[in-house]
């Protein structure tokens, strides 16, 4: 059947973006370091200050990032809702047009 052949052609596996695997491995490696990292030694106070600063920046940055993600998800939901509302309104309009045309 023609459409099935067209679907197979349209849906062939694409090439992954260049450097994809490297980026995944880098993120996996960064994730491990974040979980397992420990500070020790003579620069303990400096390290603690650095960690505190990083944590603060991370919290602030993380909060902002999280808020942006929340806003983005809320926007996606809002547009989905409006799309559905528009679709049903236009279903009603189409039916009215159809009756008027008869």
């Amino acid at each position, binding site marked *: 059947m023609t*459409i*099935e052949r*067209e*679907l*197979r*052609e*349209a*849906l*062939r*596996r*694409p*090439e*992954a*973006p260049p450097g*994809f*695997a*490297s*980026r*995944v*491995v880098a*993120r*996996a*490696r960064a*994730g491990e370091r974040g979980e397992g990292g420990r500070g020790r030694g003579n620069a303990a106070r400096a390290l603690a200050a650095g960690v505190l600063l990083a944590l603060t920046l991370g919290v602030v940055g993380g909060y902002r990032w999280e808020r942006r993600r929340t806003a983005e*998800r809320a926007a*996606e*939901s809002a*547009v*989905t809702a*409006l*799309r559905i509302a528009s679709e049903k309104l236009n279903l009603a309009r189409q039916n009215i047009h159809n009756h008027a045309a008869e």
Partner: protein
Amino acid sequence: MVIPSALSRAGEGDEAAFARLVVEHERMVYGIALHSLHDRETAEELSQEVFLQLYRSLDAIESPEHLVNWLRRVTANRCIDVARRRRFRLVPLEDVAVAGDAGEWRDPIAARTLARLIGRLPARQRLVIVLRYQEELELGEIAATLSMSVNTVKSHLRRGIEKLRRWLGESAERSDS
């Protein structure tokens, strides 16, 4: 002597082995994401997160076959979650991948049109179509991947193809007029 597979070595922390797994399966994962979401940036982000989840779950993967099924299932479920929330975003036709061997002639316009029309289907119908025609899965395999009954898969497939046929017909009419 048993030669450890990339899977078992990755599970033991071999980074190069994990990278090999990513390279082996990236087209499948990225393809499901891209054809479902029609957004390169989101598809790559989602694909990366699937492999990161794999990285954290390697101990639970029992075999190469299990790995493939796991990747498909996790990718499909993430796509369903994202696709429902992101229906508003239209992607320019140019951004939708048209894959295939460079040497083989294909009609890129028709492929892009069809890919775009697939993007109009509801999320689950879209996933069923992608798993059937990109991954060549049998209905039972699609059912297991998406946690639905075979009858539901059949229904999604039938209705999805009906809609695509109808839209293709409308699209052809509009381009003729």
